[in-house]
C-alpha cells in the first residue's frame, strides 16, 4: 500500500490544475453602493431556501480611546436594548418569531450583527437591523444591568482563563502605541467606570450607513434585495465619522518578555514576532502570502513540522499552535503558542522551537510540503461553499480590512504562485529577535482543593 500510495500521490499533484476548485459554477456576487454611502454585497447561493443577513460596522476596539476600552463591545450588547420603535429585548423576540438565529460579535477591527432566516423572512430582519442603525434608544437602567453582564463575560472568558490572561499580556507587551494592545472586551477598570453616555457617544460616532457594509448570502434575488435594502437602510442619513489617527507602532528594538502568574497546572509559552500584513492596493506583495504558507508548513496538518518534531519526536511540548492572519486593519503578529509536556521547561520548549525555525531558515522547505498546503487551500475553496454563513463571514471580514470581496479569489491564486524560497525568505527576515515578544504563563496552584472527591 505504501509504495502504491506514494505513486498515486505524485501523479495527483502533477495533475492538479489551478482552476480545478473553481470549476463548478462559481458563486454569483453583486455589489451596490447606496447614495448614503452604505455598501451592499449580495452572494447568490440557491442550494437551500435560507439567507444570512449581516451588517458590518468598521468600528472595533482599535477605534477606542483611553479609559474607554471595551466600549465597542459594550455597545454591541446595548444594540439589543431598544430603539424608538422596538422596546428592549423585543428585537430578539421578533427575530425568534420568524425562526431566526441571531447574534453579534466585536473584534479589534469591526463590530458585526447577523441573522439567519428562511428566505421569505429576510425583509423583516432587514427592517429591524436598519431600524437600530439610527434609532437606538436605551435607558440608563438597561445599561447598568448590561454592564454587569459584560463584566461577567470578562470574568468567564478572561479572568478565570489563564490562556486568555497570557494572550492579553502578550498583546499589551508586544504593542506600545497601537490600540491593538488593548483587549476587545476592555480592561476591567474601564468597564467598572463606563457610563451609558460612553456607549451612546460611541454609537453616535460610528454607527452610520457610510461606515457600514451589509452582506447578504443565500437564496435571494439581488434586484429584490436591493429594493428592500434601499427601502429600509436607504433613508438613514450619512454623517461625518471621527478622524482615525494612524497610531502606527514604532519599530521594535529587541526582545520583550512578560510573565503571567495564574491558576494552572502547566506552563505555557507564547512567542510573537512583528510581521507585515497584506496592504490594500498592494495585492502582489509576496511576503504576507509566504507568511500564511509558513504558518501552514509549521502547523497546517497533523504531520506539519512543529507538531511532528516538538510533540511527537522530542515530546517537549504537549500541544503547539501557530497563528497569523494576513488580513487585518492593525499590525500583525506571527504567533507560536505551546503548552509544556510533563516535566519539560519553558526554556527547553523555546530551544526546540528555535531549533526547528533555524533549520527551516537554513535549509528551506520541500516543494512537496508546499504543494500539500496548496492542495488544502484549493479543496477548502469547495468546502467553504457548503456554508452560506461562512461565505458571508469571509466577505465581511475581507471588506472590513480594506479589501474588496473581489480580491478573495485573486489572493488565493496569488498564494498558489509562492515558492519554497519565498517562504524561507520571510522566515529568515521576520522570525528574528529584534521583533520578538515572549510571554510565559507561570502556573500557580489553586488555594482550594479542586480534586477532592466526595460530598
Amino acid at each position, binding site marked *: 500500500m*505504501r509504495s502504491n*500510495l506514494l505513486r498515486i*500521490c505524485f501523479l*495527483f499533484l502533477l495533475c492538479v490544475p489551478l482552476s480545478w476548485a473553481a470549476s*463548478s459554477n462559481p458563486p454569483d456576487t453583486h455589489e451596490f453602493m447606496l447614495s448614503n454611502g452604505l455598501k451592499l454585497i449580495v452572494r447568490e447561493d440557491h*442550494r*437551500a*431556501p*435560507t439567507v444570512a443577513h449581516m451588517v458590518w460596522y468598521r468600528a472595533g476596539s482599535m477605534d477606542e480611546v483611553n479609559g474607554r476600552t471595551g466600549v465597542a463591545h459594550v455597545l454591541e450588547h446595548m444594540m*439589543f436594548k431598544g430603539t424608538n420603535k422596538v422596546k*428592549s*429585548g*423585543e428585537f*430578539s423576540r*421578533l427575530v*425568534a*418569531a*420568524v*425562526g*431566526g438565529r441571531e447574534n453579534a460579535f466585536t473584534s479589534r477591527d469591526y463590530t458585526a450583527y447577523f441573522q439567519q432566516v*428562511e428566505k421569505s423572512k429576510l425583509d423583516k430582519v432587514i427592517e429591524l437591523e436598519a431600524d437600530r442603525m439610527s434609532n437606538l434608544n436605551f435607558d440608563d437602567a438597561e445599561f*447598568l*444591568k*448590561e*454592564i*454587569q*453582564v*459584560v463584566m*461577567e463575560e470578562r*470574568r*468567564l472568558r478572561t479572568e478565570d482563563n489563564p490562556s486568555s490572561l497570557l494572550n492579553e499580556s502578550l498583546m499589551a507587551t508586544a504593542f506600545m502605541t497601537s490600540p491593538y494592545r488593548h483587549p476587545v472586551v476592555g480592561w476591567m477598570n474601564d468597564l467598572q467606570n463606563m457610563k451609558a453616555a460612553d456607549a451612546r457617544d460611541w454609537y453616535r460616532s460610528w454607527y452610520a450607513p457610510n461606515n457600514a457594509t451589509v452582506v447578504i448570502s443565500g437564496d435571494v434575488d439581488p434586484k429584490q434585495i436591493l429594493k428592500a435594502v434601499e427601502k429600509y437602510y436607504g433613508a438613514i442619513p450619512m454623517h461625518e465619522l471621527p478622524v482615525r489617527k494612524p497610531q502606527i507602532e514604532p519599530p521594535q528594538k529587541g526582545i520583550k518578555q512578560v510573565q503571567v502568574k495564574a*491558576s*494552572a*497546572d*502547566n506552563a505555557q509559552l507564547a512567542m510573537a514576532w512583528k510581521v507585515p500584513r497584506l496592504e490594500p492596493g498592494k495585492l502582489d506583495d509576496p511576503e504576507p502570502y509566504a507568511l500564511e504558507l509558513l504558518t501552514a508548513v509549521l502547523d497546517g496538518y*497533523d*504531520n506539519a513540522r512543529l507538531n*511532528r518534531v516538538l*510533540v*511527537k519526536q522530542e*515530546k517537549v511540548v*504537549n500541544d503547539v499552535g501557530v497563528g497569523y492572519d494576513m488580513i487585518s486593519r492593525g499590525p500583525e503578529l506571527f504567533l507560536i503558542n505551546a*503548552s509544556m509536556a*510533563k516535566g519539560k521547561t519553558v526554556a527547553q520548549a523555546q530551544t526546540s522551537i528555535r531549533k526547528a525555525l533555524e533549520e527551516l531558515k537554513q535549509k528551506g522547505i520541500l516543494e512537496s510540503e508546499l504543494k*500539500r*498546503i496548496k*492542495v488544502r487551500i484549493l*479543496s477548502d475553496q*469547495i*468546502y467553504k*461553499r*457548503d*456554508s*452560506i454563513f461562512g461565505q458571508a463571514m469571509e466577505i465581511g471580514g475581507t471588506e472590513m480590512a480594506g479589501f474588496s470581496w473581489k480580491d478573495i479569489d485573486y489572493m488565493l491564486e496569488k498564494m498558489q504562485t509562492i515558492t519554497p524560497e519565498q517562504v524561507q525568505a520571510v522566515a529568515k527576515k521576520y522570525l528574528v529577535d529584534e521583533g520578538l515578544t515572549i510571554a510565559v504563563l507561570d*502556573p500557580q496552584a*489553586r488555594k*482550594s482543593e*479542586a*480534586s477532592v472527591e466526595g*460530598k
Partner: protein
Amino acid sequence: MMNTLKIIAVVYLLAFGFLNNANAILPIEKLDGYKGAKGYLVQTKTLPMVDIEVSIDAGDRYDPVGKSGLADMVAALMQYGVRGNNGSLTEAQIADEIADLGANIGLSVSGERAILRIRSLSRKDLRDRAVKLAAAMLSAPTYEAKIVEREKQRAITNLLEAETKPEFVLERRFTKLVYGNYPLGNAPTVKSVAAVSANDLMQFHKQFYRGDRMIISIVGDVDRSQANEIMQTLLQKTSQSGAPIAKLPELQRSPVEPLAQREIQIPFDSQQAHIAMGMTAVTRSNPDYFPLLVGNYILGGGGFVSRLMAEVREKRGLAYSVFSYFSPGKDTGIFQAGLQTKNEQAAMALEVMSSTIAQFIADGPTPSDLIAAKSNLINGYPLRIDNNRKLLDNVSSIAWNDLPLDTMEIWTKQVEAVTLEQVSAAFQKYLAMDRMKIVVLGAKNK
C-alpha cells in the same frame, strides 16, 4: 409591538407554506446492508464534495471499570498507525496522505458512540483513497506501544490542566452525581488513563469495532451505487460480528432526596461560581420528545428569549450565559441547566434559576409562550438542514436513534401538534425539583 394575533398569522401562513414545500426536503435513502452495518444516503449534487460518517457503538459507556478514557483513546489513536494491504502506514504517512488528498478525517467519541468522519472532494480517485485510509483505521490500527505511551502522557497532562479549570471540575462532579454507578458516571482520571495498556486498546477495538455495531451515513455528490461501493470499501476488512457484549446496567432515575443529599458545594478560588442543576430524563425516541423540545425552548433553550435568560440576565444582569437543555440519545439522557456568576451573587443566581425552573414545571408555559416557541422552531426549521454538514448531523441522529426515515419531513408537523397540556404533562412527568442534583463550585459563597 408584538401581539398575539400577529404571531398566529405567522404560524398559519408558514404551515401552509410547508405543505406546499414538503417535497423540498431531500429524502434519506437506505443503502444495502453490508457486514451487518446499516447505511443511509442523502444525495446533494450542487457541490463536488461528500461527507461520510461511520458511527460505532463503542462510546465511553463501555469503558471498563478503572480504565475510563479507554474508548476515547481507541478512536483517537486509529489515526496514528495502521496495517494496510501491502504493509503498514505510520502516523506521518497517514497525516501526509490526508493532507495530499485535501480531505479531512476526524475522530470523536461521546458517551454512546465513536464517530469517524470523512470530508472529501467527490472526484472518484480522491474519494477512494480517503475511504481506503479510513477503512484501514477501522479495521487494522496498530496501537504501537511507543505511541500509546506518548498519547497517554499527553492525555494525562491535559487532564491535570483541566482539573484546574472550574468548568471541567464542575462538569465532572455533576456527571458523577447524576449518573451514579452507571458507566458514564466515571470520567477519565489520571489513574484510569495510566492504567490503559496497548493491549487494552487492541482488545477493545477488536471487540467493538465490527460491522454489526456500525452505521454509515453519507451526504453529498454520490449516487446510490457509489454510496454502496463506499460502504463496502469502508468495511472490507472489518469483521462482521464477534463475541457477545455484556448488557449495560439500567440508568436509575434520579431519586427523590432531601436537598442536603442532592446538593454539593466545591470550594474553588475562581472569580466566578459555576452552577449546574439537573437530573436523568429521556431517550430521543421517547414519544414526549417534542413536548420537551418545545418546552425547553421556552425554559432555557431559546437563546436570548428564554425564561432563564430573561430572569437571570435580562432582568438582573447576573450572568453572561444561562441555559437549559435535554440531551436525549439512544440511552436515557439528562436534563441540565447552568450558569456562571461572580462568587458574591452565587446564592442569589441559584435561587433565581431554581425558582424559574420550578415555576415552569409547576405551571407550564403560557399560550403566547407556546405560540412563540412553535413559531421559532417551525419557521426556523430550514436552518437546521440547509447544508451538507447539517444534513449529515440529521441523518446520523435519525439512523443512530432508530427514528423513522421521514423524520425531517414530519418534524414541523410534530412541533405544530404539541399542546400546552402536553408540555406541562411531560415536564411534570420527567422533571421534579426534589430530584434535581445541584453542584455549586466557587469561593466561599454563603
